[in-house]
């Protein structure tokens, strides 16, 4: 079986300007942050991001001017920050094209793509403006063949007349990047804890890049195949990226970093401070190792390491930080 190990920089360089891309994780957990920062460093432009509940991965990409169009349900860091500061500004300033769905609608769309179906039905959205309003104009939709011609359609069940469901279009992306606890060089993937929609996101992409905290022998992962949600043939590239989701959490590995999140949220509220944040933590450090040094190095990271009895850091200070 082919060895799919590659460097983070080489993997990121595969994603060109204008690519359609989904990133794994959920709000403050398991986003492939190191790869997102690498795309910022590469100054990618016109990316088309599709997701459900991204956080600072998208916020940094949007703020750095890498993104043209998004389809999403939510962009924020939940209890850490109720709306992504750069996402909010980009919409209010008309700097980005977007379409709103709900989380269930987006994961149903990913699932449809993952199954090779053109659409799937769901019973949500009825009565809402998420269904009634389209943020993308017909012209904007027509300008990019990757965007469905309409957002959703209400149909009556052919089997039980009178019963209405909403059809949502399948998602297909050129790239998906997920960050996981363990992967083998051959591309067998182990996700611990909640899987979010990583599996569906990976299975509807042409090229799947897996960044992993740990690279382990394929045979070791094959001892418990029921814990491996993705077959190796769905994965094209594997990168060893310890702390690859920082400042976000990876169950069983490390917790989120409340100090760095606070710093990001405060900086991102102001254009000049945000530019400075990008410079200090992304542009000036040449790579992931440089980033980890910039945020405080081993001393800071040790404070975030998970307690094996919990899978997170029970004594982590999350409020009233100095």
């Amino acid at each position, binding site marked *: 079986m082919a060895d799919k190990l590659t460097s983070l920089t080489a993997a990121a360089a595969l994603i060109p300007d204008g690519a359609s891309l989904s990133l794994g994780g*959920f*709000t*403050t*957990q*398991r986003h492939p942050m190191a790869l997102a920062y690498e795309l910022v460093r590469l100054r990618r432009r016109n990316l088309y991001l599709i997701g*459900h*509940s991204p956080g600072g991965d998208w916020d940094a990409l949007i703020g750095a001017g890498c993104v043209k169009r998004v389809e999403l*349900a*939510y*962009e924020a*860091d*939940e*209890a850490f920050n109720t*709306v992504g500061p750069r996402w*909010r500004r980009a*919409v*209010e300033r*008309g700097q980005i094209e977007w379409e*709103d769905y*709900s*989380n*269930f*609608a987006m*994961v*149903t769309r*990913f*699932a449809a793509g993952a199954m090779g179906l053109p659409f799937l039905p*769901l*019973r*949500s*959205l*009825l*009565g*809402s*403006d*998420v269904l*009634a*309003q389209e*943020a993308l*104009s017909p012209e904007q939709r027509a300008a990019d063949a990757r965007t469905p011609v309409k957002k959703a359609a209400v149909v009556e069940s052919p089997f039980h007349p009178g*019963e*209405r469901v909403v059809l949502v279009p399948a998602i297909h992306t050129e790239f998906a990047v997920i960050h996981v606890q363990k992967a083998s060089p051959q591309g067998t993937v182990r996700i611990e*804890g*909640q*899987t*979010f*929609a990583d599996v*569906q996101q990976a299975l509807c992409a042409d090229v799947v890049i897996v960044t992993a905290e740990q690279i382990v022998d394929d045979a070791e992962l094959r001892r418990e195949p029921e814990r491996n949600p993705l077959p190796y043939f769905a994965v094209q590239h594997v990168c060893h990226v310890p702390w690859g989701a920082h400042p976000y*959490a*990876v*169950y*069983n590995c490390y*917790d989120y970093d409340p100090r760095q999140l606070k710093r990001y949220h405060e900086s991102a509220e102001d254009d000049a401070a945000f530019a400075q944040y990008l410079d200090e933590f992304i542009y000036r450090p040449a790579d992931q190792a440089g980033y980890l040094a910039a945020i405080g190095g081993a001393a800071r990271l040790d404070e975030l390491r*998970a307690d094996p009895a*919990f*899978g*997170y850091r*029970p004594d982590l200070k*999350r*409020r009233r930080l100095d």
Partner: protein
Amino acid sequence: MPQAAYSLTELMAVAAAREIADGEVVFAGTGLPMLASMLAQRTHAPNCCLIFEAGTAASQLAHLPMSVGDPRVMRGAAMAAGLHEVFAYVLQAGRVDVGFLSGAQVDRFGNINSTAIGADPRHPKVRFSGSGGACDIACLARRTVIIARHEKRRFPENVDYITSPGWLRGGASRQEAGLRWGGPAAVVTTRGLMRFRPDTHAMYLASYHPGLTAPDVAAETGFALAIDEAAETPVPTAEELRILREVVDPERVFLQ
């Protein structure tokens, strides 16, 4: 027994907890709903089950999560999967008894906006996070409880954007839209607790918080709010406060 001093957050958490019955399946979001659900589990509803949309069922939380995908929700969970499993097999299938919602605007029929402020949704004046799972919970939970800051501008006649459908235009309009069940049962705010008429589904004031009067609450509401049946909100018991402060949120993550 002398009355214990309590904060507004504590009063709201207790009022929200009392909306949960024992044995119910609760779809909880971050913040006050988590305080309320954890309190309910430790008081009158020890058998209620917490569902988090990022993929877990029946967590036994030891520490308050900051996210519904927080590693903390894995503690003692009966099942860990992903969003699709929870939304499709638990929520859409009708297995959620009560879901919690919040937003920037709430109207008289309990429709909620958490998307954007402004008349033209393509050019919003203020943009928020977006639906997340809120629209899905509003459509598919058997009933919902809304948590909101009570200010006139946040309780308009009509919300700018219906992110989460409530009773829509009242009467049978929710059912006519194709939603088979559900709808808001209560609104817990910074000023009182609202419920909905069984026929018209218009919001009315059920209780006003201590220190306020029913007309005070109506004056801070952007639509005509019936107040004739309102009583004072029952205050938290000393035991509820002790559990909130010592067991549920000793770190003071959400409690103020």
